[in-house]
Structure formats: C-alpha cells, structure tokens
C-alpha cells in the first residue's frame, strides 16, 4: 500500500515537474528588450556620448586635464579632483571608463554594436560611417593613454593592449577603406542614418570630408615617428585632400539639446562657467593680447571691472581656498558668453583646424598647396566660426602681429591652431605635446617631482587590477605608466 502510494505520488510529481520546465526559457527571456535592433538609435547614442559633450566627461577630458595642461584655462576650484593644474599625477579612471564601458555611455562599445548590426543588415554605408566614427573615438582615447585594447576590445573579458603604432596605422587604413566604400556605395540608395546621424544628418559627402580631415589629424600627429616617412607619408599621396571639411557647414559638431532630459546632452561649458571653476589662463590671455586678437572678447568674459585679465596656471590649493571668492572669481575672466549659450555648437573637428593642418602639411611638404594661404584661410575660418565676420578686421589682423612669417611659419600655424581649438583642451594639449607650441608657462606650484607638463594620462586602476597581465605587457612595452611616459607619436615606443 505504502509503496503503491509513494510510487504513484512520485510518478505524478516527476511527470508534472518535468513537463513544467518547457516554458522556462520563455519565462526567463527579457520582456522589455529585444534581441536585435536597427542600429540608428545606438548610433545616435554613440555620437552624442562620444562627442564628449556631457559635462560628466568634459571636465575630465578638458577642464581638469587638457585645458589646464595646454593652458587655455587656469584652475580656481579646490578639491582633490582639481590639482591637475599643479601636475599632480593620478590614474585617469573616468575618461577611459566612459569611452569603453560606462553603462549607457560607452561610445566605443556602442559603436562596436552599430558596426556589427549594420554588417548584419548588409548596409555598407551605415557600416562605413560607423567605422569612420570609430576612428575618431579611438584616436581620442589613444592620444590620452597610448597603448590600449583595440583589436580585441569588446570581444574578450581581458583584451590585450595594442601598441599605439599599430592602432594608428590601422586607423589610417580604416579611413582609406571606408572613404572608398562610401564613394562606391553612396549613390546606391542604401538608407543612411538620416536624422539619427546627429553629426551630419546622413550627408555622406560630409562624412567623406570629415574622414579626410581626420586623416590629416592622425597623419600629422604621427609625423615625427619613423613610421611616418616610411609608410604614412607615401600613403597620404593617394588621399584627395580637396575633399576635407571646407566650410562652417561641414564642421564636425553637434548642437547641445538645452531641453534634453539629462544634463549629459546640454552645453557643458555653461555648467563649468556657472560653477566658476576656471579662469582664462594668462598664457592664453597674453597670446591673444599680443596678437591684438578680437577673439579675446569672445573667449573670455570680462571681470567685474569690465576688464580682461589672464590668471597664472597652477595656483596652490591653499591660495585658491583663501582667495577664490574674494579675489580670483571677481578679478579674472570666466569663459566667454559665446561658449555658454544653450545652443553653442560643440565642435569636434572644424574647418579652421583643417586649414591649419593643411598649412602645416603644405609647409612641411607632405601635401601640395601654399602654407600661407591655408594659414590665412584658417584664421578667417576661425574668426567666422566665432561670429567675427568683418573682412576688414580679419585683414587687419592678418597684416598685424599675426601676419604669416615664413621663418616662423610652424610656430604661427601651431599657435593659431591652438587658438582656434579653444575650448577643446584635449586637442590643444596633443598639439602642444607634439610641437612644443605655443610655449607653456611654468605653473606657480607643482607637485614635487612633477615639474613639467604631463605627456599622457596614466592607465585606469581598473585595467591594472582586472587585466593585469595585458596591462603589464603594455606598460613594459611603453616603458612605464606614469604621466611622463612618452606616447609613440611623442617620441616614445
């Protein structure tokens, strides 16, 4: 009896239970998300987050690193995050994390999926555009840190670091290949990203221009390496540099969304200026004043007395703590009002910068053309970009202290590019690192043993801790992981 009952019960139970697991997979499958998606909405996110417009990354990439290293700004805020103006060394966690992994930001990871999905839907146009965008993103990161996981990033839990040299050479190839693809398929009727492409609204010709300007940026940055003359310079000859960014309308830029749902899509400079964390650097002020440059009134807001004054870089924290409200805030210049408007474009790569790159390339004989006319075109483009359209005034300027002087051509071209880049501190810092121009002033106070301008950002703790083997390989290849370890294009390995 007992056996019968137990047996029956067990049989029923087993039947009931084994039958029930059939719906387990369906039960567990997420109901509010999907297994695939059109890449457009991912691409929008990748562009916006990758543009670095969010003040969340803008501060780390520009305000408290590039912008004070390159002396666009001087710091007047106290706190452990605000000591880069004194060259205090630190691991740069946030920027790396932002580009690779930060949940809901990670532009490189998002773009990786955009490329993957556009391949799946066999749309060569979308794929090529995303791959060009990828070049922009990767260069931003490698120019800060040097070696980085590139070829296997997002594919493995612990991807190997690739050398900056290999990355650069591959990025240049990517630009060549994808410009060719765009040219081949742009009129085949493949749907572009359309409005989801918040850089160029689906205009593929502009993407070609952007790619070619980007090519110049990469090539020139690599121009002091042995690989440049060996392989890059010859390849440059096949690039059509007439198809570069050639007007304000083809600037690579996005317009902030002042009514957007989060602060990540609003103009970061309006926050920074409201917080009074920076003042115009004395270095920037002096250069503008010496050139009698009308951009001073655009770049800087007058102080409480209606005057312009630049602040020395690297004030010690104790001095800032004491003088911030009483002296530094009122007597020095905040960021100019042009930059803090709701709709001020956030520029990634401009017509003006393209002209100065061409001027340098022409002067150094990498491309054909006249350096002076590129220089003059660049100054004009920069003035126009900031709303200075008076041709006579530009003409005066180009015949004043800023007049092109072939004997000082490179210094002038670099200085003008550095001016035109404002407030893109990160690119300005890269320029200063490569060229040494304009000359930086020594900060008032620097951390002991850190007297000169940093040459890179040390790797984030997370890679050192969770990807130790690959991290160590990269560090030994680069010859260290501190802020004075040289990048490949800066004379390093």
């Amino acid at each position, binding site marked *: 009896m007992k056996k019968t009952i137990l047996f029956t019960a067990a049989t029923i*139970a087993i039947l009931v239970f084994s039958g029930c697991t059939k719906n387990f997979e369906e039960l567990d499958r997420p109901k509010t998300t999907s297994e695939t998606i059109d890449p*457009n909405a991912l691409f*929008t996110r990748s562009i916006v987050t990758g543009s670095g417009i969010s003040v969340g990354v803008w501060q780390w990439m520009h305000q408290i690193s590039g912008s004070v290293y390159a002396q666009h700004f001087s710091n007047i805020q106290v706190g452990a995050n605000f000591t880069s103006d004194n060259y205090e060394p630190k691991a740069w966690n946030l920027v790396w994390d932002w580009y690779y992994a930060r949940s809901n930001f990670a532009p490189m990871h998002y773009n990786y999926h955009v490329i993957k999905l556009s391949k799946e839907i066999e749309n060569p146009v979308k794929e090529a555009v995303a791959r060009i965008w990828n070049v922009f993103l990767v260069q931003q990161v490698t120019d800060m840190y040097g070696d980085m996981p590139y070829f296997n990033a997002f594919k493995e839990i612990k991807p190997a670091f690739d050398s900056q040299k290999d990355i650069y050479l591959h990025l240049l190839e990517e630009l060549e290949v994808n410009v060719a693809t765009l040219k081949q398929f742009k009129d085949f009727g493949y749907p572009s990203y359309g409005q989801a492409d*918040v850089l160029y609204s689906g205009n593929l010709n502009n993407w070609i221009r952007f790619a070619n300007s980007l090519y110049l940026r990469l090539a020139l940055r690599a121009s002091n390496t042995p690989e440049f003359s060996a392989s890059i310079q010859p390849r440059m000859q096949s690039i059509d540099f007439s198809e570069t960014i050639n007007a304000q309308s083809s600037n690579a830029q996005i317009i902030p969304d002042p009514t957007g749902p989060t602060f990540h899509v609003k103009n970061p400079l309006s926050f920074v200026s409201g917080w*009074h964390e920076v003042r115009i650097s004395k270095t920037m002020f002096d250069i503008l004043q010496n050139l009698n440059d009308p951009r001073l009134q655009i770049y800087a807001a007058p102080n409480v007395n209606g005057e312009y004054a630049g602040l020395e870089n690297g004030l010690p924290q104790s001095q800032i703590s004491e003088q911030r409200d009483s002296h530094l805030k009122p007597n020095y210049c905040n960021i100019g009002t042009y930059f803090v408007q709701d709709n001020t474009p956030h520029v990634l790569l401009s017509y003006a910068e393209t002209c100065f790159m061409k001027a340098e390339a022409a002067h150094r004989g990498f491309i054909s053309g006249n350096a002076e006319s590129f220089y003059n075109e660049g100054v004009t483009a920069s003035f126009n970009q900031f709303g200075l359209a008076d041709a006579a005034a530009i003409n005066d300027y180009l015949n004043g202290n800023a007049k092109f002087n072939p004997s000082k051509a490179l210094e002038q071209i670099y200085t003008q590019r550095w001016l035109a880049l404002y407030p893109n501190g990160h690119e300005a810092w890269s320029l200063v690192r490569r060229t040494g121009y304009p000359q930086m002033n020594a900060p008032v106070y620097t951390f002991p043993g850190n007297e000169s301008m940093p040459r890179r950002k040390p790797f984030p703790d997370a890679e050192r801790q969770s990807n130790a083997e690959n991290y160590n390989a990269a560090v030994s290849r680069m010859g260290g992981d501190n802020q004075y370890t040289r990048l490949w294009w800066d004379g390093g390995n």
Partner: protein
Amino acid sequence: MKRIHFTNVFLTTFLLILGLSAFAQRPLNGVVKDAEGLTLPGANVVVTGTLTGVTSDLDGKFFIELPAGSNEIEVSFVGYVTKKLNVEGKNFIEVVLLPEALQLQEMVVTALGIKRESKALGYSVQQVDGEALSNTSRISPISGLMGQVAGLQIGESGSGAGGSQKILIRGANSLTGSNDPLFVVDGVPIDNSGGSSGGLFGGFDYGNAANNINADDIESVTVLKGGAASALYGARGQNGVIMITTKSGSRKEGIGITYQTMFSFQDPLIKPDFQTNFSQGSGGKFGKLNPRSWGEKMQGQSVVNFLGQEQILNTVTENPYDAFFRTAISQDHSVTLDKKGETNGILFSASWNQNDGIIRTNEFDKKSFNIRYDSKLAKFLTLDARVNYINQKAENRPNLAGSPDNSIYLLTLMPPSVSLNQLENYRTVSGLPVVWNSEYVVNADGTISLNQPSPSFASSPLLQNPYWATNLNTNSDIRNRMMGFTSLSLDLKELFKLGFDLRLTTKAGLDYYNDERNRITAQKTYYKAEGLATGSFSRFQVMEGNYDFLLSGNKQWSKFFLSVSAGGNIMQRQYRGLSSSSESGLINEFGPYVIQNYLNPIVTTGLTNIEIQSLYSMVSMDYRRMVYLDLTFRNDWTSVLSPESWSYQYPSISASWLLDETFELPEYFNLFKVRASYAGVGSGGSIAGQRYFQYGTNANQFHGLPYGFFNSDRPEPNLRSEYTISKEAGIQLVMFGSRLNLDFAIYQTGTKNQIFSNPLTPSSGFNSGFINSGFVNNSGVEIAASYILVQKPDLKWSVGGNFTRQWSEVKELSEDIDQIVQGGVAGMRIVARFGQPAGIILGTAFARDEQGRILLDSESLPRLKTAETGAILDDNIIGNATPDFLWGFNSQVNYKQFFMSFNIDSKLGHDIFSVTNMVGAEYGTFAFTEEGREDWYRAVKLAQDANDPNIRPQDFNLGFMVKGVKDGVEGEYAVDPQKYWDRASRIHEAFIYDASYIRFRQFSFGYNINSKLLKKTPLREASLSLFANNLFYIMLNTKNISPESSFGTSNNLGFEMYAYPELRTIGVNLKLSL
C-alpha cells in the same frame, strides 16, 4: 526511557537480597512540590535499589518505610526531572522537582515546518521565544534577535524609522550577492528584499520586508544555521533560514484577549564631537563664502556673515545634532483575540505602529491585520490557514550615504560659525535656496533675498540647506502587502486504516506586495544641474507563490523508528513595475510635483519572472532514541539558468548520538549529545534574464531622438549553479538538573561557483558581468551556554552567553579575476582576494620606511604610498571588515512578580573606514582638527612680525606636530593643521578605526501584576515593563561614528558614509490579557 542497564538485573537482585536481609526499617515523611511551590500529587517515590515505592497523595505528601541501610530515594514525576536524594538521618523531606528543561523535550520547528524534538537533530538550531522579541523590538522584530543566537550577526543600518538590518548567519558565504538568510513564515518563504539602497549617490532604506511582520504575532523564531538544517529549502536557504512561527488560537476557556501597547523614545547614541572655536574660512581668516571651517578663532569679534548681517563670533555651545534632530517617538498598539474550540482554533490580531523619526519630517505608520484559522474538518483532514494584511506608509525616509540631501553630510560640513537658526528660513523671496556659502540680505520683514548675480547650481561642494533637504526634497512610500497560506493535511493512516503513520500535506502560500515610491527634488535645489526639479514616481508589485506537497510516513518498530517524506515545491516569483521619472524640471514652476507637470518624463516598465521547481525527500531514523540519522536529497530546476544547468541536485546527512541514553553516565548529565552533519545546497542565483544579450530603447534623449541601449552587465549564458557546502560537528550538554545548558559547535561553510556580477576591465565593454567564481571558506566555533544560577519558588536567576570565533578565507577565485570588489566608497574598497580573509579593506596608505615610520615630504606632510612610477597606490591593505569574534551575554531574573533582563553584545577584531571623519577632517569641523591651530596661527603672526623673508612660520615649532621622517631625519615637525588634514583626508588609512565594541544592548524591567489582585477584575494577566535598547557602549574605539554604522544592508559592511546615528531607545510596554 529505556537505557541499557547492563548491571541492573544483577544489581537489583543483589540489593534485593541485601534488603531482605535487613529487617530494621525506619519511616520517612515528605512532600513533593514543583519549583513554583505547588504540590505534586501522584509522584513516584522509590527507595533506590529496591522495589519499595509509594506515590504522593493529593496534597503531594507521602510516607514510606525505608529498609535499614537504605538512605537514598528516587522521586520521579512525568515531565519532571527524576531526583535522587540522600535521606540519611532525616524523618521529613521536601522534594522540589524541576520540570524537564525545555531543551530536553523542546520541539523545534525545522525545515518544511516539521516539528522535531530538539535533541534528535544532528545540526545546530536555536529557537527564540516570540515574547522576547515583542517586549523589546516591536518595530523591527528582526533586530530583537541581536545577541541572542550564536553565529547570528545583525548589523543595524541606522537609517530611520522602519529601516532594515543586515543579517548574516555564520559569516558571508557569497562575496557580492545576497547573504541574507531565507525568511519562512509558517512554512511559507517570504520575500525579504527591498532593504537598503544606500548607494554612493544616496538612496533610501525601505526596510527589510521581514520586518513587516507584527512582532506580537510571532510565537517563536527558529534559526536554522547549518546547511543540513536548510537543505530542504534549497537555493534560498543556502545562507541559513530564519523560521517564524506565528501564533494560532490556543485559548480554551472563553475568549483570549490580549492588548499590548508600547511607547518609546529614541535619541542618537553617538554624536560627533564638533569643533566649537574656529569659524568658517581658510588659513585662519574668516570667509563667509568659504565652504570650510579653517577660519579664525571665535572670541567675540564681529563679522558680516553670509546673510549680510553683523555677527559676533563666539564659541559654540550646542551640538548641531541636538538642534537639528528631534527625539523620535514611537507607539505601538496591538490586540489579539484567540479561541480554541473542540475542532478548530482561531486567532485574530490587529496592530498599529507609528513612528516619528529623528528627522522632523520623517514619519512611519504601519497597520497589520492577521487571521489564523485551523480546523479539524474530519478525523483525517485538517485545515490551517492564515491571512495577513499589512499597510505601511513612510514619509521622508532619510537620504543616505552620498546624497547631498543627507542631513548627516550637511551637518558634518556646516561651519561652527553658522547656526541652524540662520538656515531655518531656507528660501529666498524668489524661491532660491539659502545656503551658507552664498551672499544674501535679510529684508526688513525678515525675508531673505539673494545678494549676488545668480546662484551657481550644482557647484562643488554640493552644499545644501538641511531644512530645504528635509522639507522640500521629499520622498514617500506606501506598501500594501498580503501574505497568507492555506494548508490541508490528510491523515492517510486514519483514512485507509493503515498500520503506520502516513500523512499528505499540501500548502499554497502567497506573498504579494504592491509598492508605491515617490521621490522629489524641488525646483531650484542647489545641487541640481540648473536647479531643475527631478521626480521619480514608481509602482511595482512582487508576487511570490509557493505551492508544495509533502507525503510523509513513519513507523515505529520496537527499537527502530523510520520516517520517510517526499515532497515537491513550485516557487513562482513575478516582479512587475512601472516607473516614470524626469530630471528636466517642472512645466509650471508653481504647480504640483506630479509627473504630468514635469518636462521630458521617461516611462519604463519592468517585468521579470523566476520559477524554481523542486522535488525532495527526507529519511529520518533512530535506534532506541539513542542514535538519530537524517538524510535528505533535493533536485531543483530553476528558470534562470540555461537548460544544460538548470537542474541540480544536492544531499545532506546529519546524525546525532545521545550518549546519556547509551551509557550510564554520572547523574548530573541530563543530556549528552554529539552530532555531525554535512550538507550541500545548490542555487541558480536569482537574476532573471541575465543570460541574454538584449537591446532596448529610450525615447526622447537628444533633440527628440531616441537612444538605443544594451545590457549594462555582461551577459553570460553558461552559468552553472552555485554549491554551498556546510559541515558541522557539535556537542550539546544539559547538566545539573537541567540548570546548565551547553552547546558547542564547529562549522565550516563555503559556496563554490558563486554567481555574481564581478567588476570587469572596462576594455571588455562592461563594468561588470556575471561569472561563476569564488569560494569563501567560513569556519568557526560557536559556544552557547546558559545556566540557572538560582531556582527557588520566588526567585529564578539565569544567565546565558554565546560566543563565536569565525575565520573567513577566500580559497578560490576563477582565473579570470584577480579580486572581487565587494563594495567601496571614495576610492576605498572592500575586496575578496585569494588567500586573504574575505572583506579586506583597500585604500591609500601612508608612505613608510622599512621601520614603518611615516615619510614626510618637503612640506612636512605625510606622503602617500606610491608605486615606483609615482602613481598613488590605492590598493594597500589597510584593514579588515570581518569580525573575528562575536559574543553576547544575557541574564534574566524573576523575583516574585518582578522580572528583569539584560543583554550585552559584542563584535571584536574588525575595522571600519569612515568617510564622515575624513570629510570632517578636511573641512575642519570635527573637534580633533582644533589641535595645533592656535599655535600655528601664532607662528604665522610671529613670522610676519619678524619681517624677514627667511623666517617662515614652521621655524617656530608651533602648530600641528607631525611625527615622521623628513629628509632622512626623524622628528616632529610643525605644520598648518589645515594642510595636514587636507593631505590626510586623501589617505584612507588615516580614517580606519577599530570597530570592536562591547555594547549594553538591551535592558528590560517589568512587573507582572499579582494574580490575586486581578481576581476582582476581568483581567487574567497584566504586566508592565520598561525597556531600553542600545543604552551605552562598554567598549568603543571609533571616533564620532558608531562602529555598527554601515553603508547599506547589502555587502557593504566595513565602511560608512555619513551614516545616521545609532539610536538609543527607551520605552514602556503594557500587556493586558483577559
């Protein structure tokens, strides 16, 4: 009770002969009483070693003739401990029999609700009487278990009315996941999620769901510690099980009516010691806009403050905690009615609990209604059912951790020269916040206007007016919860007239709750970007159903008992949520904070399902009630794993051996048990949908365009089930007429293949991902002892203690990961590293030479430990968050109508990192930052007066004296204390404190009104008691914070960040029964 008396027959025969040979007899009179002094009729009195025996009469009296040479009698009575007495030279004797100790006969509720004799169990179980909880911790019954159970560790989060606790049984098995034990109420597992979400950017503590239970409904709480105890609950029992048995109708005559009420008051037990002498400012100078408190000494001078008013600076006399917080008051009322009839019993209870927190706007209100009904429907069929409805409402739970609305943060930063009454008017005429580092003017009518161009919202540091924070940035939550079960028990033996016990029990249990949570930051809140209002309005419901059957049969042969059970369970859990939120501000600034008045509302829905199916069986047997053996086996199928791994099995075995029943042990052994158990518990984890890579969408993210997104955790489709192994061996002794109770256990537990979300290297594209890894070995020794010091009719005094020594070591980590980050804040982390104890604290440290001396830089400030590259090392081991020892001591005294008890608890051998102290140091608000200030400012003055550029302040050797090695020379160097603490505040090691403590945890004193007095009233029972919780620390090594502060209730022990103060409770309890 059958014993093997090997020599009994022989001995008896021998004594019989001896007895017969002695004819001389003498009479003995006596009386048998119990401990209460009541006489015991019908007790057996036997002359030891003879057949001579009598029974006591109706008055408990007896008369017996003692054979010559016999001087010993044995007195026994059912339910009492048999006593042997030497009666040599006595004519009269009063025999007091003590009831067999609870532990001997105690029935404990074990897994699956099966009642077992405690002594039969091969694993450690501890039961706590519900009364003990309802007397002292009626608001959060769980916290009442603190210090009562060996191996049970409860951490209070100190997070306002209705907050939660962190509960650990025998240490943390899981490195990053939940270590919460499973809560089972009347055999039905309930959802205990919800606790704290005290993240880095704030959060609230919504309370453990288990605290929703009305303390007065609890009959008893059983803590099942070992794996064998919980193996039958499967996955969710892998961290132990806390079983709550609720009361059922038991009153046989009339209706039982009990009314209980409690009033209590709560105050912060530990308040920071603020500095009172130096004003807002920097470098010894007053600065009305400066966020720090390094200004000049306040000695009657006059300044213009941030309100534009003249203010005389004077030493502060009041601690801002006293001014800002109020005394919390709570009251609790409950009524219970119960009735037991011939075939059925019913119990009804209703309770209302109201609690005003120490923050003036924090209120909590809970109502609970409960009906329990049991009925014998037929001879073979029993019904048991319970429904419990809970309605709970909270207003303005405290903002925790790094929230800029956290009052503790705001008070920690507030300079002594600013007083709270300057901030009480927290809004300007135009609705802007009044904060003490902006400039204002006070208008003639007392209103305040801004006196600067515009406030800079979200400026660093994120200062905030504490009154704005608590009055305008509000939160509220409402919970409606239904819990219940119905159970039918079919007696198949009765039904089919079987020759053995066979019973089928089916049970359906449901736990459903519906939560509404709203949170608002007001328009123009100082720390919000552009001052835009934000709002989050969410609704979610959780439903968990448990459906089980259990077929159990048992049969007793003459010496052998066998019980076999087989059962199954289906657990279905569903979460559904809908939330709308916005960070874009109000449409109508003067309108209400409702979602339709927000710009850019974002709506999200959530829907997850988890199902676990289980089959299990258990075999229990014993031989002559001397040796017991339990075997269990369970198979689970879980929906959250892939088909290859969703089925997993695990066994358990436990045995116990009663030596006292086996051997002839000395009389003073009442119980001598040795036991051992081994158990495995599998688990599939509890994260639904984690194995799929998925894309989702968010509308309107950039110029109206949508964004796509994907998983923020890296999915891992091939996870395997976790496996927890626990081993235990122990000895239980009951001795000296059951006065001494001693339990000794050694245990070892650990979970292999732990499923958790581990930090990944960012270049993988994810910050975290689920993996199988990690094995923490927790081992320990537990001793629980109690002793009845005095047992007299009028006086009973007992003491008890428990002691746990625990060791915890990370034994395994997968090759993919080097360490597991369990938590952290401000750069400091709690991690698990291979070969290290779990919960080591990593952070920045002082640079030291080989002799351990602190190295100073050229400014005489301590250097941070760096790598050779110059990079600051932030992964130095600077402490350990896991306590080595836990112990508790308690004592109860009953004297006549009075009763008194107290309880001491202690944790020893662990550390805590304090952000509060770190920030108090940096900002110069804590008293310890006063050291050296006056001296330094004098040195600065002397240096100025010297008027010589070569003379610097540090040359006078006045100031904060830093001990260390500078340029190879050891010495004490004078520095500016502001600079010192500025530097030190970047060294985590400087803010590690020994968290060891001994605390006078609980005290109660009461009076049971004499039953004689009550005879004239309808009352049957009445008692009045006074109780106090967290009275004081006997030993305390932390500064300004409680050693029990925590960051949240998940795996976040070992550090605190602006933790709310631990509260001292004093209250009164009244109980009336009809």
